[in-house]
């Protein structure tokens, strides 16, 4: 994966094209339609983002059908997709899966899986969080078999394959299992986020293929990149929420004037703006870090996630507050964002987890 192959101006043009596409393909009415349908996938939006715009191939080298770009470009797409609440597996299949596979450094796995991910024809997801206190284990029984449970697996119901991290007799490994295969039980969860379903994945001796070798170091890098990716989503949603709140403050009249004229509301909106600008600077900085500089990547990813996980929820909550009663209704978009924001907040560690790691990194605690 490259650091950045494009200029800021090119990325800005790219942003416009993604935003244009999503504003017609995934307006709020469409998002609600797909949620009601219960499939967890907006097929038309996914086809447009993958096959037509090539976004699923951004992080994949050209030799495997991708565009050979880096996080600097991908964060733009993530911001825009989250801003539109697009019901697509971009984070799981467009970011985490291709990164997880490439970090394993397994040429055969690259050739097997990356082309399908690049054009969006196959959907893969990552099962990285152990559930129920059980540590997922890989046993070598004439080929690898996986045992354990994974929770909060994004888009598991629509994935063809699931990438699983598991403990091996010698360390940590990355494995791939067939989502519909033997010994894989997918139980949909009553997830907070309505735009991105999650599932509990139970592995009961599921036959698995190992990708690459010892994976603990690679997993650390994957977590850092996941922090940057979820921060980008938080930024995209925060910016949209701020715009929604400001628009409402300009038009809603009480006591004879628009409520945005009252300083209590105005200052809340100004603070939202300051946090959005801060998040943007942090995300852009983190996305430009050379991923092979793991020390810098680790620190910058902790910083950006600690910041975005703290203030994006604040912005979502403040948006509801600015709207008063209307913000508490199902019909208003604010809760759809709040739900996704709270989910991105905890993925790869919330602000407390990140600050805890920073304490150790800075030598404040052992």
């Amino acid at each position, binding site marked *: 994966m490259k650091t950045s192959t494009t200029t800021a101006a090119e990325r800005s043009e790219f942003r416009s094209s993604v935003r244009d596409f999503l504003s017609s393909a995934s307006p709020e009415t469409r998002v609600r339609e797909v949620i009601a349908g219960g499939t967890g996938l907006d097929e038309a939006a996914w086809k447009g983002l993958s096959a037509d715009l090539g976004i699923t191939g951004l992080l994949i080298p050209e030799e495997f059908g991708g565009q050979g770009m880096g996080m600097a470009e991908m964060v733009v797409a993530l911001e825009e997709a989250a801003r539109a609440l697009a019901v697509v597996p971009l984070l799981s299949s467009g970011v985490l899966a291709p990164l997880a596979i490439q970090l394993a450094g397994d040429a055969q796995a690259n050739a097997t899986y990356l082309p399908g991910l690049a054009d969006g024809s196959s959907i893969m997801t990552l099962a990285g969080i152990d559930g129920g206190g059980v540590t997922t284990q890989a046993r070598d029984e004439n080929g690898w078999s996986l045992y354990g449970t994974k929770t909060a697996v994004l888009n598991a119901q629509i994935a063809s394959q699931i990438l699983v991290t598991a403990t091996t007799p010698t360390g940590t490994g990355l494995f791939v299992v067939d989502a519909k295969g033997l010994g894989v039980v997918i139980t949909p969860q009553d997830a907070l986020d309505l735009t991105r379903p999650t599932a509990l994945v139970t592995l009961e001796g599921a036959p698995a293929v190992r990708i690459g070798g010892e994976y603990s170091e690679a997993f650390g890098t994957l977590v850092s990149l996941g922090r940057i990716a979820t921060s980008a989503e938080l930024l995209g949603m925060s910016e949209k929420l701020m715009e929604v709140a*400001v628009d409402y*403050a*300009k038009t809603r009249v009480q006591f004879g*004037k*628009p409520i*945005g*004229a*009252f*300083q209590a*509301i*105005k*200052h809340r*909106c*100004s*603070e939202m*703006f*300051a946090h959005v*600008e*801060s*998040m943007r*600077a*942090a995300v*852009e*900085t983190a996305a430009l870090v050379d991923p092979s500089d793991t020390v810098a990547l680790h620190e*910058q990813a902790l*910083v*950006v996630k*600690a*910041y975005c996980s*703290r203030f994006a929820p604040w912005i979502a909550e403040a948006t509801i507050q600015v709207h008063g009663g209307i913000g508490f209704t199902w019909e208003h978009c604010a809760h759809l964002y709040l739900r996704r924001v709270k989910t991105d907040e905890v993925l790869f560690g919330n602000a407390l987890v*990140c*600050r*805890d790691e*920073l*304490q150790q990194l*800075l*030598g*404040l*605690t052992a």
Partner: protein
Amino acid sequence: MEELEGELRIWLNDALPAWQAQWGADQETWDAKCDWQRRMADGRWAIASWPVEFGGRGLGTLEVLAIEDVVASYGAPQIPGMIGLKNVAPTLMKFGNEEQRKHVARIGNTDEVWCQGFSEPGAGSDLASLRTRAVIDGDEFVINGQKVWTSNGMHASHMQLLARTDADAPKHKGISAIIVPMDTPGVEVRPIKQINGGAEFAEVFFTDARVPLANLIGPLHDGWGVTMTTLGHERAGVAVFAGRLEARIRSLIEEVSKSDHAVSPVVADELVEHYVESRVLGSMGRAMLAKIAEGGTPGSEQSVIKMVWSELSQRVDTTIMELAGVAGVTGDDNDAKLGYLSARSATIAAGTSDIVKNIIGDRVLGLPRE
């Protein structure tokens, strides 16, 4: 840029020890600081942003900020005549007539120390509501009124005064910029003692003080335009503040982590919160400087950085006071005590945080005015 910094380092390696040798124990005195400014001006470092025709180097914002960073890293003293160098001189260069421009060189070498007579008891955040009046009488202005929070007022030889010259015009349109020598009869200066014990500001009273009409800077009644153009010069400085606060928090954490006392997780988390915010603020500062380097003009960034910087730097001093515990209130830890008191001004000076939030709301977000 590297060549410039190299030249500066070579210069500093000689100039700073020479100055220190001359002033010894008196380095904190006003005269010592003026002497340092003279040396910095002679070397064309203090006046690097000035055009070559005024003796400067004609350098842009980024080069000047780099110079200031290097000078600060040597632990050199503050330049005492900063207001003259950064605000008054550029105003005189742009709007002054030939006679008025003669002040510029004297501002550089501290023969003249300038202050700006802007804020008044009734005109702080709402500066344009100022009421000090300058009435034309023959070939003189007759000035009556009061200024407050005048930086360097006790040391100044001259003031760039903003006074109302047309009481009937809309508030921004009836103000003029006038040069007032501080020894003019009818001008009285009193120091303002601050909560941290210092007295960097003065109150200035005008009672029938008379100055020639020739002291008008720029057009009559357009003092607002004359002044606001040059205030913009200073704004990029917030990006440097951002970087310095980031460095300050980094070294505070280093200091705490190296101390013999175990750090409680509660304290550690407070420090890490500051660290996270300062790293993000630093990123904003660097993005703003990069924009300037590419020829762009910073817009809302400076308001945001100013707001975040002032609130964060204030919180850091509060944390340091908390870390000091009882030593902070007994005076055993004097730095913590004074730092805490001084930090109250961070969210007040150069626009209170509350006003900055109004400005962002009104001008950036387009929210209706109150």
